[in-house]
């Protein structure tokens, strides 16, 4: 006699697939490509990305310059490679700022009673009314525009997102039995949040961080395009697009490659976020896709 399947077990022959979702694979490849390119750019680029060659401006695709050269004769692929480094750098620090302030704020909101909760959430609403570009303009008007101002602005703008996600996810965990047991044991709310809630909501936060990274790349590109992000001579994708606009009739490809690089990176992080959501927390996988 065959053994009875356990209640809730998957029907025979329909075991849940362990194969990673397509979005995770595609996202992983795209993100891996960008990260590998950025790392490689520290060791090697086909040419010096800042080397000006006035005799070789607007060169087409060739074995010497794979994607051609710009208006100053600078090698496009080398600029794109170093640009990926700046993009990731700003993304990591911006999301880092948002996480390191947002998660503790969310924790405070959920552990310190109704008044603190209300205050944190209302403050989040106000910060949320400042899109990164407005914050960057505010910061640039006071300090000089540059990478630091851009990533601070993006980081501050995304704090409410992490505060809200942390609060929402932690709230459901803090109502569960093991946290009630910890409370009965005499543990403080802060301790319970760090030791019991955080590990249980880490998957939600990882997914959120991946998605916010994609948004940070878009924001950094927009700020660099406006001249508020990475400053020359350091190459940045947004700035390359800004410069390309003057030469649309002469060399349209200048406006294509940096845009593709931005879109591929953002798509990569978004797909990675979707894939991770499916893999780490199937309950959330029903969100918009």
């Amino acid at each position, binding site marked *: 006699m065959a053994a009875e399947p356990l209640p809730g077990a998957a029907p025979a022959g329909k075991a849940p697939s362990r194969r990673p979702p397509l979005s995770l694979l595609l996202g992983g490849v795209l993100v891996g490509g960008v990260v590998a390119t950025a790392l490689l750019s520290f060791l090697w680029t086909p040419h010096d990305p800042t080397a000006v060659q006035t005799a070789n401006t607007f060169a087409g695709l060739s074995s010497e310059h794979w994607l051609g050269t710009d208006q100053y004769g600078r090698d496009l692929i080398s600029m794109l490679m170093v640009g990926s480094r700046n993009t990731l750098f700003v993304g990591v620090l911006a999301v880092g700022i948002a996480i390191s302030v947002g998660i503790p704020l969310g924790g405070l909101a959920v552990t310190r009673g109704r008044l603190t909760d209300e205050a944190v959430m*209302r*403050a989040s*609403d*106000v*910060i*949320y*009314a*400042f*899109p*990164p*570009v*407005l914050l960057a*303009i*505010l*910061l*640039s*008007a*006071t*300090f000089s*525009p540059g990478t630091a101002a851009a990533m601070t602005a993006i980081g501050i703008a995304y704090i409410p997102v992490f505060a809200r996600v942390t609060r929402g996810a932690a709230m459901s965990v803090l109502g569960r039995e093991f946290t009630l047991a910890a409370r009965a044991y005499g543990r403080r709310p802060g301790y319970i949040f760090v030791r019991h809630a955080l590990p249980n909501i880490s998957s939600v936060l990882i997914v959120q961080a991946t998605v916010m990274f*994609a948004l940070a790349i*878009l924001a950094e*590109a*927009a700020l660099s*395009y*406006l*001249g*508020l992000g990475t400053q020359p001579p350091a190459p940045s994708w*947004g700035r390359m*697009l800004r410069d*390309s*606009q003057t030469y*649309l*009739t002469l060399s*349209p490809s200048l*406006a294509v490659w940096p*845009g593709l690089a*931005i*879109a*591929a990176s*953002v*798509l990569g992080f*978004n*797909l990675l976020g979707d894939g991770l959501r499916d893999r780490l927390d199937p309950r959330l996988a029903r*969100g*918009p*896709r």
Partner: protein
Amino acid sequence: MAVYVVRRVVIFTLSLVLASMLVFGVLAVLPGDPAQVILGEQATEENLAVLRAEMGLDQPVWRQYLDWASGLVRGDFGTSYVSQAAIGPMIAQRLQVTIPLALLGLALAVAVATPLGVYAASRHGRWVDTAISAGSQIGIAIPAFWTGILLVMLVSVYLGWLPSGGFVPLATDPVGWLRSMALPALSLGLVQASILTRYVRSAVLEVLREDFVRTARAKGLTRTKALLRHGLRNAAIPLVTLLGLQFGFLFAGTVVIENVFFLPGLGRMILQAANGRDLLLVQGTVMVLTFAILLVNFLVDVAYRVIDPRLRAS
């Protein structure tokens, strides 16, 4: 309902006060002397002192804030240091470009996303659904300003159909106005449409699983009729909230898009003001944009209750 609206009004007002403190604080309290920033490193001490007195910088910070904030309430934004013109009328004039641009972008996004999202949901799991989902995923990854540059390259440079930039006032030439706004609105709207399509699809899918749709089908309605008669109205509720939240991003988008197409809107003015260290103009413009975003969020919160009788009852 009245209690809810009063509560929301109080929160909205407090949010505005907090936002004004933030805007003022970033520019006034952070290290650095605005007078020095405006006049540059070479400025003499006398000139700096005169400018500080002129700008009220010799007053305590709380006094400076109260002067500025009470001015805002009266509609007096102060005078631009660079152009010496009153800031209020400057902002009002620029809004005549920015508001239509944002609204056109939003209208376009809704017009594209609603049919696409509904169609994708009604063909759930089929290749059309996959294609629309993949398309919107790619659309989200494309920066609006790159869409703008590509549209200029295709529609203006190659085809020569529309101008690549510049602005024609509506009162002067309505057709010329529409031609000058078409590409900027399209750039702004397409990215928003990609985001919205995903949410429309998701909201409709959610509603299609509801019991009342099954009941409607059991009563003999076709899938399409059940969707149109019962599904869409219910799916609209979460979408109204999303549109409200997207409004902030839409306004932020106008700042970038106006610079792509050289439109004389608020976005272009604020960037020029930031570059020229025209601090009062930056403060005023950021405050107006933040006010608009908070106001829309407030209206959406209230509209949410009006649309959904279930929430009103609770």
